[in-house]
């Protein structure tokens, strides 16, 4: 009898197994969707997979990293809920200040701050923005702080717009592309994220060696990780925040931060972005 009961149980288990498997595949918890722009994570599969692994470990759940071409697309996706959190830029964060909240701000070289660089080709005699009048210029993204807002607000202070000041303006949708554009001679100058330029100078010294920095902006708030303000209490968003802030405490997190040339991610505060806000004011006021 005993053996019969076991046989029946085995039979039941066997019959149930496909059902269980199908259930978990169909109805398992949806992965957390975290959006990135290729603005500074350009074509680097190693960085993306390390970050994904570290976040997934920290959150204890599957995570999907979603890449979009522009900040505008990221902002739209965040607001309509198609992504749960995003690593964006201070400028779009401030543009949607009321709808978004900070998850964390990366710490680079000891501070949650970075600069915007104005770059030209290595042999270019220009030393200031005013020397670049009538040339061609590469911006990164119209919603990028370092890759647009800084240069545009500097011009706005003089009552000019980029289209008036430069003979031609192009958007490359990537800080690395701005460096390529200037290094390759497609444009005379470019506005680039200082953090990206510095990271590239170690990763691709041949590329940055063909450019030089002629103007560095003041220190501004580092591009933050954000989520929709009304979803901050959701467990997955809270888990994400915790995972981000705890990255420097785990081996995988440290590895990912190292690949990103970052020290840690700290909670951050809105005051970090006052400099950017001031520039937005100049641009809209001008």
């Amino acid at each position, binding site marked *: 009898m005993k053996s019969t009961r076991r046989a029946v149980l085995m039979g039941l288990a066997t019959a149930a197994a496909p059902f269980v498997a199908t259930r978990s595949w169909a109805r398992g918890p949806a992965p957390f969707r975290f959006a990135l722009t290729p603005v500074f994570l350009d074509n680097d599969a190693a960085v993306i997979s390390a970050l994904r692994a570290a976040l997934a470990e920290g959150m204890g759940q599957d995570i999907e990293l979603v890449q979009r071409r522009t900040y505008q697309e990221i902002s739209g996706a965040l607001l309509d809920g198609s992504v749960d959190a995003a690593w964006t830029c201070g400028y779009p964060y401030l543009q949607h200040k009321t709808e978004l909240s900070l998850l964390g701000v990366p710490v680079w070289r000891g501070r949650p701050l970075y600069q915007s660089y104005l770059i030209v080709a290595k042999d270019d005699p220009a030393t200031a923005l005013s020397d670049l009048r009538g040339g*061609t210029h*590469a911006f990164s993204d119209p919603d990028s702080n370092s890759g647009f807002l800084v240069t545009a607000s500097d011009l706005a202070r003089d009552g000019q717009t980029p289209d008036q000041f430069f*003979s*031609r303006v*192009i*958007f*490359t*949708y990537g800080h690395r*592309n701005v460096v*390529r*554009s200037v290094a*390759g*001679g*497609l*444009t005379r100058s470019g506005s680039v994220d200082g953090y990206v330029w510095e990271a590239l100078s170690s990763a691709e010294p041949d590329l940055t060696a063909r450019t030089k920095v002629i103007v560095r902006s003041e220190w501004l708030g580092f591009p933050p990780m954000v989520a929709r303000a009304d979803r901050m209490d959701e467990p997955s968003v809270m888990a994400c925040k915790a995972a981000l802030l705890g990255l420097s405490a785990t081996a995988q997190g440290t590895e990912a931060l190292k690949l990103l040339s970052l020290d840690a991610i700290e909670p951050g505060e809105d005051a970090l972005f006052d400099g950017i806000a001031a520039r937005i004011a100049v641009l809209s006021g001008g």
Partner: protein
Amino acid sequence: MRPLPRFRNLPVTLRVPLVMAGLMILLGFLASQSVLSALGKVQDARLSETARLHVEGLSVALGPSVLRQDVWEVYDILDRARSAYDGQRLLLSIVADERGRILAATDPRRAPVGEEVAGFEVGAVPPDAVRMTGDPVLRVAAPLLFQGRQIGQIVTELDVTDLLAERRNVSMWLLFGNAAATALLAFGGWLAVAKILRPVGALVSAMDDSQGAPRPIAESDIPRGDPGLSRLISTYNRMTAAVESRAEAERRLAERERFVSLGRLSSSLAHEVNNPLGGLLNAADTILSYSDRPEVVRQSAELMQRGLSHLRDVTRAILDENRLDRVGQALRPEDLEDLKLLFEPEVASRAQRLHWNVEAGLAGLKGLPAAPVRQIVLNLLLNAGAAAGQHGQVGLDVTAGEGQFLIEITDTGPGLGQADLGRLLASGPLPPGGGVGLRLVHDLVSQLEGEIQHDRVGDKTYVRVTLPLKDASHA
């Protein structure tokens, strides 16, 4: 036109290998041309394929970006396509919009955004028509098609330095290879032909070395393995023997000629001897009859002395003409006097007038051998005498000066016929019939390196013989 005769003058052992080498070079040249042409076709096809794939690939990738006039996207695609393309074939790719303004190029410094693309289209051809022209950089231009319509243009510069170098290398290898093969084969050919033609060379040198008297080739040198050649050489040897025997016959004939000329003189000389004999006998009778009258005896004795000394002179002249031991002796004025003595009876017998003028003294005759000059003068005089006929005129003028010895014989005969002139003036074969006297004159004058001229003025025939006078020490 000059090198051809020179080439003909080359020995056959050199000419045949040269001709062979020439043909080898021609063959090598034709073979090289066909290899290079095949290589050129392969290279052209490769180039054309490269250009076509490049343009087609770019058209597909660039279409939407060009439509949007997105400078960065176009540049990004061109730049990534360039770095993905192995090799350095594509020097520059330019993409222009439909108005012909540059949207982007792989080298924006050379082709800045917004400039006219027309400047880069100079000399550009469609991808299918691209050919190696010898230029290291070739330009290809093609319309940029998207969804079936032209939205712009693509201009590409192809670097074909490597293909040119490949072509040059192949050319050099062909050149050196063919040159070496040709040299080797020409040398081998020369050896083989030289071996085959060695008997011919021997034949040629035997004919050349002989100075007019062909030398036979030794039996041991006749190649028995080559029937044609051995027959040729045997024929040549028989010919040399025939030539030699002919020369021997001519020599004997010339030897006899002296006797012939004396023979022609014999009847007049017989008179010359006979005439004084009557006078001498009369004188002897007178002495016998008037032995007591000393003045008559003396007169008769003087008469006999004169007649006998004349006979002695005549016989001495005849003897001198025949003496073989005088061969090689120098000419003296007495030799000409002897000739006059011998010839005068001939003149007398025909009642001819003789003009005899010898101006050359002993000094003027220096270096001339006696025997041939006597033979020349005597033969010409006998000929002139015979030609002048009864009551005619015969003349001899001998002068010397300025290194020349000039003999001029004149007669009032009807002139020399064509056959006689042929004998006297030319070296050609003797026409059949007729004597050998004039030919002997010609040969003797040739031996003395002199010249014969013939002239006919009015009713007079002039034959002038000019002999060069050599240094006396040679005589």
